């Protein structure tokens, strides 16, 4: 069973040997704080522990260690006191081998090295930043060039698309032509106006369709159209549709003849309102003739 006495000796021995934990050290402090006898006993343990140091073989201390110590005392200590005058062999603190100064110099070297390293890193960072800036500018220029190129390509594509559509329409027209030409009963009617306009009407009686081309008709306002009319003996003028202007200024129309219209004798073209009219404007008929 551990008594208080045993516990005290244990703590005192461990603390004096430097083997105690922080908790044990605090426990001992509490025990000796108000107990002078315990304090004295602890002192005996400490003196016994110091024997371990005293038993060590003496090491010759370096010379002139005290000069830098005194220098530190003079510069940092507020405690005054008698100072011996410098002797013949006295060296100023700056002249002696000053271990503290050596450490300070080492520290200064380390600081300098650190500053140089930092500066080098800063320089590298700046160079890297400039390099990145150049790269960013190059990328921006390349991006602009690419965008311009893309815009040009889009324009070109649009042009090509337009041309393709035009070509498609042309092919489509040609196909219609071929289709018409291949019709065995194909017939052609030509109407001529007074001032030179001509109308060619390709007639496919089997499929009851007309392909109409009008040449050299005078220009008309935007709100007007040339309109084709079937003229039947029984029905009179029947609207056949408006003519579409082609790029070569030719007008054309593809017409399907109404199923109930059989006795078409003539065809006529007049200028009508945009989109066509139900009745022809007689004084605006530009071409009329038999089929």
């Amino acid at each position, binding site marked *: 069973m551990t008594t208080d006495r045993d516990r005290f000796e244990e703590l005192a021995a461990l603390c004096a*040997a*430097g083997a105690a934990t922080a908790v044990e050290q605090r426990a001992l402090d509490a025990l000796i704080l108000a107990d002078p006898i315990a304090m004295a006993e602890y002192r*005996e343990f400490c003196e016994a522990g110091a024997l371990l140091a005293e038993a060590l073989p*003496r090491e010759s201390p370096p010379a002139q260690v005290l000069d830098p110590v005194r220098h530190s*005392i003079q510069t940092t200590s507020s405690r005054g*006191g008698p100072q011996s005058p410098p002797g013949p062999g006295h060296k100023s603190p700056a002249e002696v081998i000053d271990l503290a100064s*050596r450490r300070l110099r080492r520290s200064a070297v380390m600081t300098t090295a650190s500053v140089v390293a930092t500066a080098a890193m800063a320089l590298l960072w700046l160079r890297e930043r400039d390099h990145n800036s150049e790269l960013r500018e190059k990328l921006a220029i390349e991006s602009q060039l690419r965008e311009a190129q893309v815009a040009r390509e889009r324009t070109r594509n649009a042009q090509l698309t337009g041309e393709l559509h035009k070509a498609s329409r042309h092919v489509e027209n040609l196909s219609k032509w071929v289709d018409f030409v291949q019709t065995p009963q194909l017939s052609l009617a030509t109407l001529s106006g007074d001032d030179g306009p001509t109308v060619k009407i390709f007639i496919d009686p089997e499929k009851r369709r007309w392909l109409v081309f009008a040449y050299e008709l005078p220009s008309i306002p935007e709100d007007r159209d040339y309109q084709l009319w079937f003229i039947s003996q029984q029905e009179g003028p029947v609207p056949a549709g408006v003519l579409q202007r082609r790029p070569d200024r030719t007008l054309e129309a593809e017409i399907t003849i109404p199923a109930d219209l059989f006795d078409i004798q003539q065809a006529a073209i007049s200028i009508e309102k945009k989109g066509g009219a139900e009745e022809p404007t007689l004084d605006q008929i530009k071409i009329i003739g038999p089929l």
Partner: protein
Amino acid sequence: MTAAARAQDDRDLVAAMAAGDSTSALSEIYNRFGGMVMAVLYRIMGSRAEAEELLQEVFLELWRRAPTYDPTRASVSTWVVTIARSRGIDALRARQRRGGGRHQPVEEAPLMQAPEHERPDERMATNQRSQRVREALAELSDVQREALELSYFGGMSHREIAEHIDIPVGTVKSRIISGMKVLRTALAAQGGLQ
């Protein structure tokens, strides 16, 4: 000079330092304890260069702490050793935190010898103390000495020592406590404290 007179002389030197004597009193303290402080630091650090650097710090600290020295709590010698050991252990732990090695005891050397520069009377006193210390340490067993070496100069707690030499904590504590009691008894038998 008797041991008691010398102990009183030590106390007077510390009192002089406390009063501001940074020349003769500090020099005399250095002459008396410089070799021992150097030995303690060398034993703790295992490097003479590091010990020399710390030596200066120890004496500066002795100067600064002289006004708080309490002769009822420790002899001057023990006070000096305590401060030196504390500085040394701090430096050792700092080195360990930086990735340096733990305490590595220097090769065992003969027990204390009087420094060559001591005066004859000082040499005699030193040799008397040396004899006393030798006799005290001779009472320790090898395992007690090992445990005390690791705690006192290695700065290890009993738990760290138990891990270090792979024995139970209780065994380590037992060795340290018994070793310290041996030293204390031997010290008391040879005249005790001055």
